[in-house]
């Protein structure tokens, strides 16, 4: 089994080297004459005003929170999904309860309006 992951490791090396080779090659080929104007922040030709890192809507954070929880729940279902044809009706009931809880969480969030993007 570890051999399989060793192959993935070799592939990872290949995958890392592929973007790296053109980057290094381009480093030697391209001109590099930066001027203050060139390296200034692009803002449609105007001078950039204000800080970029402003506070963002809390909505983004709420979606991320909901995502983490649903992600964990879905991942918990994966092992069961592999085995559920074997464990049969009993497992069906167990997983249905689990799924219903997922649904309940989603419904709560929906009713509460946390899924509204306004």
């Amino acid at each position, binding site marked *: 089994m*570890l051999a399989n992951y060793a192959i993935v490791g070799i592939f990872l090396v290949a995958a890392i080297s592929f973007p790296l080779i053109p980057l290094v090659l381009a480093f030697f080929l391209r001109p590099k004459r930066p001027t203050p104007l060139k390296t200034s922040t692009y803002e449609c030709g105007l001078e950039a005003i204000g800080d970029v890192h402003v*506070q963002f809507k809390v909505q983004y954070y709420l979606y991320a929170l909901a995502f983490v929880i649903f992600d964990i*729940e879905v991942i*918990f279902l994966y092992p069961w999904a592999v085995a*559920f044809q074997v464990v049969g009706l009993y497992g069906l009931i167990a997983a249905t309860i689990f799924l219903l*809880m997922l649904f309940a969480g989603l419904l709560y969030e929906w009713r509460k309006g946390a899924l509204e993007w306004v």
Partner: protein
Amino acid sequence: MEVVVQITFGVIAVFILVAAAMVVSVRNVIHAALWLIACFFGVGALYMLLEAEFLAVVQVLIYVGAVSVLILFAIMLTRQITGEGVRQLTNRWPVVLAIATLLFATVLAPTLINQQWNVPPAPPLGTPEPIAGPAELGRGFVNEFLIQFQVVGVLLTVALIGAIVIAYEERARRRKVLTLAEELELKRLREQTSPTVPAPVEAEPVVQESRSASER
């Protein structure tokens, strides 16, 4: 083969330790978060080395793919990203270091002394086979770990509800955006009873769809 695994373990362990040290020592919060992600990856690789492939992938999926995104979002919600000029150490950090090392050693020493290296303890007779693949895990979820499985479900749902209760601001408390009909109604009311009724302070008329305006 054994040697290769040992060397890989060493490399991964050093990587995790370096990453962990960087998390607490860099000044830029985003960089700290990135080092944390690197640290999570290292832990995933460690699981992989222990042949716990499911755990390793889940580590990447949940910690790298989900929890770290949440952390990054939380950081982006704050304003001060770089802690330039903020002191990270107190004056008496050697004392603290000594105490921490001592406490850690007290915990670790008995383990180190009593550990018989490289000899996995023989399981007592009658212990069930260790759970290995996802299929066994899935069977476990609906058999011997049924209660735990359901409790996890309850826990996650409660966490979701709790998160919304804490983080979510009720709609009514946010700035009200009027619809076009409401706006016209308000205008009509204002014209009827003017000039006694001033416009409500928080009501800011906003036309949402430009289409409606252009169809006039």
